[in-house]
């Protein structure tokens, strides 16, 4: 069964450093998302992406964040200058022609 994959599973970085989180969505899906879950909090929407551009972004998704689909398979989230409060689980999701979003296993980002 097709699935969304994410790498790395755990990323530790120092405050102020740039990180890139990678996702491979399900191959025939067209819509891509990033969500995050800070420990003890709800899963929060960050951004949606369709046809090589951002469809919608939340208030969390400020200028420090960017997304890219550099080739036909990968979908990346870049945080330019990480802050302590960026520590969270980051989930990538993809969606086909139905309305269900399928999530990857997540990347645990720890900012020290």
């Amino acid at each position: 069964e097709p699935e969304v994959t994410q790498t790395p599973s755990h990323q530790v970085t120092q405050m102020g450093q740039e990180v890139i989180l990678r996702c491979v969505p399900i191959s025939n899906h067209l819509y891509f998302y990033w969500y995050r879950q800070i420990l003890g909090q709800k899963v929060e929407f960050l951004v949606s992406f369709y046809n090589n551009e951002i469809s919608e972004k939340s208030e969390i998704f400020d200028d420090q964040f960017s997304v890219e689909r550099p080739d036909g398979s990968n979908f990346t989230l870049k945080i330019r200058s990480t802050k302590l409060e960026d520590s969270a689980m980051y989930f990538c999701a993809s969606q086909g022609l139905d309305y269900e979003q399928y999530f990857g296993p997540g990347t645990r980002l720890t900012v020290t």
Partner: protein
Amino acid sequence: DQQVKQNSPSLSVQEGRISILNCDYTNSMFDYFLWYKKYPAEGPTFLISISSIKDKNEDGRFTVFLNKSAKHLSLHIVPSQPGDSAVYFCAAGGETSGSRLTFGEGTQLTVNP
């Protein structure tokens, strides 16, 4: 953000009995609802969904009920199995592609053998 709320942080049931997980929402613009199951250190796994034009959707042991007037949905699992023990998230969005999902807090279900 209290648009989607799961008021019970935990639920414990006996194997073979019914598990009922509840979810309330406030935003009447939501017209598509989903339930996800999540194990520790894994991503949410899609379980079942329902459109706002329906009041029930069934898939095997899982049934979702939607009461639009009460802005309430529930997930019924019957019979419950120990492998169902996980955190269950309710999520809501628009019935359009590319629509963001808004999640509830989650309910930890424990099914005791």
